[in-house]
């Protein structure tokens, strides 16, 4: 373990910048510099990606024993694999001998991983089973001591597999905390859950990972500007958008350090979206199911860099129908101004093949590298990092504004009392509290605190729970 003080490491300048972020709940401002700064990026790798739980993949990506995929926790390479017994593992991709990576493909199926350097060979459980000339030259090497190492903690929730390289991170269930209510709502309303279609689409953009992660906590405000063209063409029918009169909005802030927005039509008036036969109320409360049934849009971020999105969109309004899909997004930091995107489209497992295809097409036509929504976001986000990295920003301590909903800015009301779910909840999608939650969590992580302020003093119980049978499906 490194430095465990609550003070962020780095120069005094950077410490001041981070402390400014810590006041975001009151000021509604964050120093722009955090969106492009080498020193901050390096501290993030250690304190955010080295301490938090990071999304690795969905169980449906590796359905068969031996299926594996190469994944990353921050900048650390891992193998996401289902071993020969069906257990899901997340193994550090580095040979125990000289340390090179043993996986050279993106994904595949194998019973063994063989290191190309000296042919040390591991079973897909990680166990070291082959050391050439062991009996001659490595007689006293204890192979049991040299299995591929597991990520420090691995666990899953509703098919989402996470790992952390921190020993002191709380168990996943505690880390997700109350936010599981919203993960349940987004993942649990269909019979038998969701499955990933194809492989995640990956590409690299010249911006900071936090820009996308903060945007995906909510920011319905930008939809009206950045995505105006998609609304004008009915790709996103305006009646379903943030200005639509019929939709009931909720912004969920301060939910165990995570946040999201959702909007739904009450009394099940929504038609389209998912086919009626895939819905199942089992496993959700009546309140959750009622919201899920009418969900028109829903986005959120599990701190730090897993986002989810569910929307009702139309890739061809003249000829097609409004269709819903589930989008998972990982914002992998490659540098202060370089992010690799990982984009998964998921569909209800029990839906017809025809629906799955239509849902996937709608997903890639709107929220992927060529998606009509996404392409415009990326045209904007580069610019944030460009300006944020400038001398001007440093010199003038420029700030970015997240003040919607602070103080008397708007008439939005706190509906947490009557709202059935957890968190501090507001009756609008036009406020920035979801993003302030994200930056509050970032501040807490950067100063080595737990992101869930309310549980900070609770003792953390270390657990190494493996995905249970149901979650493995």
């Amino acid at each position: 373990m490194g430095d465990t003080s609550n003070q962020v490491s780095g120069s005094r300048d950077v410490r001041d910048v981070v402390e400014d972020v810590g006041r975001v709940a009151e000021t509604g401002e964050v120093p722009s510099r955090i969106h492009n700064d080498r020193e901050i990026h390096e501290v993030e790798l250690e304190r955010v990606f080295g301490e938090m739980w990071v999304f690795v993949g969905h169980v449906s990506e590796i359905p068969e024993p031996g299926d594996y995929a190469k994944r990353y926790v921050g900048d650390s390479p891992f193998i996401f694999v289902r071993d020969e017994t069906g257990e899901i593992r997340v193994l550090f991709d580095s040979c125990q001998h000289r340390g090179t990576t043993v996986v050279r493909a993106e994904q595949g199926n194998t019973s063994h991983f063989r290191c190309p350097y000296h042919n040390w060979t591991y079973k897909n459980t990680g166990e070291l089973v082959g050391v050439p000339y062991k009996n001659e030259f490595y007689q006293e090497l204890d192979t049991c001591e040299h299995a591929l190492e597991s990520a420090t903690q691995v666990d899953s929730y509703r098919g989402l597999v996470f790992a952390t390289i921190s020993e002191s991170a709380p168990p996943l269930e505690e880390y997700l905390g109350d936010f599981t209510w919203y993960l349940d709502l987004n993942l649990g309303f269909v019979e038998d859950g969701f499955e990933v279609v194809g492989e995640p689409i990956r590409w690299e953009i010249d911006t900071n990972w936090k820009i996308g992660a903060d945007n995906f906590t909510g920011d319905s405000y930008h939809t009206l500007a950045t995505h105006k063209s998609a609304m004008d063409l009915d790709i996103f029918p305006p009646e379903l958008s943030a200005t639509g009169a019929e939709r009931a909005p909720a912004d969920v802030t301060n939910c165990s350090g995570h946040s999201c927005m959702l909007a739904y039509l009450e009394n099940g008036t929504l038609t389209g979206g998912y086919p009626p036969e895939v819905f199942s109320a089992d496993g959700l409360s009546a309140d959750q199911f009622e919201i899920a049934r009418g969900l028109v849009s829903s986005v959120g971020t599990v701190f730090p860099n897993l986002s989810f999105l569910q929307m009702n969109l139309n890739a061809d309004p003249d000829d097609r129908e409004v269709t819903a899909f589930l989008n998972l997004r990982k914002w992998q930091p490659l540098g202060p101004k370089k992010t690799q995107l990982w984009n998964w489209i998921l569909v209800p497992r029990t839906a017809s093949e025809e629906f799955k295809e239509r849902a996937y097409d709608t997903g890639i036509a709107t929220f992927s590298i060529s998606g009509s929504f996404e392409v415009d976001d990326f045209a904007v986000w580069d610019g944030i990092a460009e300006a944020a990295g400038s001398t001007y920003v440093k010199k003038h301590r420029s700030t970015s504004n997240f003040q919607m909903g602070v103080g008397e800015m708007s008439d939005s009301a706190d509906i947490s009392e009557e709202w059935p779910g957890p968190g501090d909840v507001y009756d609008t999608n036009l406020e920035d509290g979801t993003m302030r939650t994200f930056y509050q969590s970032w501040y807490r992580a950067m100063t080595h605190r737990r992101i869930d302020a309310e549980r900070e003093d609770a003792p953390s119980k270390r657990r190494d729970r493996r995905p249970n049978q149901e979650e493995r499906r």
Partner: protein
Amino acid sequence: MNDEHLLTLECRQFLVTEAELLDDHRLHEWLELLTDDIEYRVPRRVMRERGAEASEFSDDGFLFRDDRGTLQTRVERYDKEYAWAENPPSRTRRIVGNVRPVERADDDVTVKNNVIVYRSQGDDADHDLITGEREDVLRRNDDGEFRLARRTVRLDQTVLPTRNLSIFL
């Protein structure tokens, strides 16, 4: 010049004209070159071990899987001032080469060709390069002119080095 040479030239001429329309942002004219039942696909390329059973080009994962309607919607969106991804427009240069007809059936010619797309957009000297092999089906219409009936772009990249695909390949 034999029939095969003529056919190759004719295919090449079509693809070069098409590239010109795309480079010049004449997207509505480009749509006119597509058949009503066009299938436009860019499968996800996956880095796999040599000899892996699964194909390097995904059967299920796509960067584009479009028909005429979805392509038309994309083009109409780029007409809008608020389509920020293409405002200002990407500066592109498509180089089409290695044009080789590989199959003929009735009105259809399957033609493989390689494409390099140079793209720049920012206020600096950087550019993105996207390369791949295209397998196109060109179909003669009633006037004997080619129209694009199917395109599959087999990219060389598994992780795309460009911020978005607000351009056609």
